[in-house]
């Protein structure tokens, strides 16, 4: 049993658009999540990250491509396999208020799936399990929450309740879609810490979807970050490496653009590393590399013609950029030619995201 927990292979999702044109929301995305692993999907609005999350959770069937759970193609598997997959992968949405039934108490919200899936055999057992779950998500003292309705909870508490509900069926993977972005700054961290605890103590894997790189860094430091742009994966790497040595010009531009919570650091950052500010529309995705109209390293005849593949720059660092691939190949070549052993790291980066402002 070495196959990954969940794999997306060449997943493409098209939505019907205006005038019969299909909108390609997700384009040839391949991702792997192992047991207990954290993969963070980062991208801006319209990047396809939420749609990818829905595919991973089995809520959306890909237009083409495969979704494999423990090696089995879930859309061609038998009913039982599909059902066990749907239980193993749970999704937490951005807005807990919209996803909780306002007429159900905390107890009823958690008891329903437990009893529906026959995970508890008696009312006492249900009661005991509900309290356990509330304690797991730090809604304590649990007894005080049992009879409350969602509107009587704060935003952070509602999100904890939807996490507890996801945990009722003992999932192996949680897809958390902007799960912390609607709560206030001061309580966001404790919500993240609760999710971290689930990973550490229960071994739950996470597909953590966010636009916030600071949260991605904190949550997925020991995992990976995958960056999406206009439906495609443009860079995938272990978190510390992606943040320190981004290879794709889009990732570099993002990291350079993010304001930091530190006046000196943020004012030292580069100006916008872009040719154009405005993001293209999904209904008119540029040909070749879809980032080329905004890219500082753009080369006519290459980037606007040929679509770059996601290629390894290091054994576990992938980027989809013609220029980065060439720079990397040249640095490898130089390394190979040189008779001396290089003490420093091979310098395959394009530009450092942090530059002194002139």
């Amino acid at each position, binding site marked *: 049993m070495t196959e990954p927990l969940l794999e997306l292979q060449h997943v493409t999702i098209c939505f019907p658009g205006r005038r019969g044109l299909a909108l390609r929301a997700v384009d040839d995305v391949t991702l792997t999540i192992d047991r207990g692993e954290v993969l963070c999907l980062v991208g*801006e*609005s319209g990047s396809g990250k939420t749609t990818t999350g829905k595919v991973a959770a089995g809520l959306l069937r890909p237009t083409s491509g495969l979704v494999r759970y423990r090696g089995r193609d879930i859309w061609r598997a038998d009913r039982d396999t599909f059902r066990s997959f749907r239980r193993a992968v749970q999704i937490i949405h951005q807005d807990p208020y919209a996803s909780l039934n306002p007429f159900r108490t905390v107890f009823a919200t958690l008891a329903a799936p437990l009893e529906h899936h026959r995970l508890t055999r008696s009312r006492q057992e249900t009661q005991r399990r509900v309290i356990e779950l509330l304690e797991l998500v730090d809604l304590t003292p649990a007894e005080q929450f049992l009879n409350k309705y969602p509107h009587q909870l*704060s935003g*952070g*508490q509602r999100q904890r309740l939807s996490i507890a509900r996801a945990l009722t069926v003992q999932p192996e993977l949680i897809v958390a879609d902007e799960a912390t972005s609607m709560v*206030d*700054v*001061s*309580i*966001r*961290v*404790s919500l993240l*810490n609760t999710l971290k605890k689930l990973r550490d103590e229960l071994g739950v894997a996470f597909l953590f979807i966010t*636009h916030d*790189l*600071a949260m991605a*860094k*904190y949550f997925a*430091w020991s995992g990976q970050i995958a960056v999406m742009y206009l439906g495609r994966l443009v860079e995938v790497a272990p978190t*510390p490496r992606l*943040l320190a040595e981004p290879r794709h010009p889009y990732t570099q*531009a*993002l*990291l*350079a*653009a*993010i*304001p*930091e*919570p*530190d*006046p*000196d*650091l*943020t*004012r030292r*950052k580069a*100006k*916008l590393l*872009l040719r154009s*500010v*405005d*993001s293209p529309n999904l209904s008119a995705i540029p040909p070749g590399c879809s980032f080329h109209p*905004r890219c500082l390293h753009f080369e006519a005849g290459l980037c606007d013609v040929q679509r770059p593949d996601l290629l390894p720059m290091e054994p576990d660092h992938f980027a989809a950029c013609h220029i980065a691939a060439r720079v990397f190949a040249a640095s490898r070549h130089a390394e190979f030619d040189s008779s001396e052993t290089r003490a420093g790291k091979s310098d395959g980066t394009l530009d450092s*995201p*942090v530059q002194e402002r002139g």
Partner: protein
Amino acid sequence: MALVLSVRDLSIDYRTPSGTLRAVQRVSFDIGENESLALIGESGCGKTTLGLALLGLLPKAARVSEGHIFYHDRHGQIVDIVTLRGEQLRRYRWRECAMVFQGALNAFNPVLRIWDQVLDTARAHGLSDASDIRGRIERLLELVQLDPRRVLAAYPHQLSGGMRQRVMIALSLLLEPRLVIYDEPTTALDILTQRAILEVLRSLRQELRFSMLFISHDLPLAAELADRVATMYAGRLVELGSVRDVFYTPRHPYTVGLVSAVPPVIGPLVEIASIPGAPPNLLQRPPGCAFHPRCTYAQAICQEQDPALVSVGDQHWSACHFWREVRSPREVLRSDD
């Protein structure tokens, strides 16, 4: 430094079915000429209510129950905005002080071209010469890096969110106000668009020299754009100081909590921490210092006495009984400078 605005002991109450709610309590601060002040705090802390009051735009259920908002005009005259009504208030808005709201993306009339909306706004505030208005808005649109001909002929839905936000910023400067209030100016925008807007605001301020008040929950935005930062909690101003003082040597535990909750993206992984508990319901404000139930420094006195905003350094104020003991967790990390 010449002042543009001085707010003194301002309190604002809302009438609600469950009683009177004090959204802003005895807040005082100044904004200098060409200065940028960030007002930071979480949802429900009163920061937007305060912003609305500065323009005389409070909703019907709210009223200023005490205090003054002194505006220092171009001729050295001082007016109290709280006492202005009708036509006087209209003249003050846009000409002296403009505001770009959080929902600016929806602030446009969907059936009017941008140019018609510009014209409407300008005429409503006393400009009448269309070619003069055209010249002004074209220059401003260029400053916010938009193509005036294309944008002015467009309907709102033909522009992206970032473009509409830049149009709003240009429009706010049309009547050359001396103070512009931005309420969450970059919320809901992509990071790259947000960066473009920050650059625009920075260069506009250098070029046109106006004062800015940012209202935001977003600390990085304050770090990026503010000269000074004010922290609000449960309707009170709890800390005020230069941007470096507030970020590097905060003297209020709530500011420390906010700063420690937001990690930088660049650099090594730093420890981040939450503030325990949740912001209070303003109908049941905790006695004494409203922050005491969440505060690690709290002692008996904090439950009894609401601390006054006192000077804790050069142009640095904090409302905490134990400000001398307050330490920022990141101070250690920054000991090298």
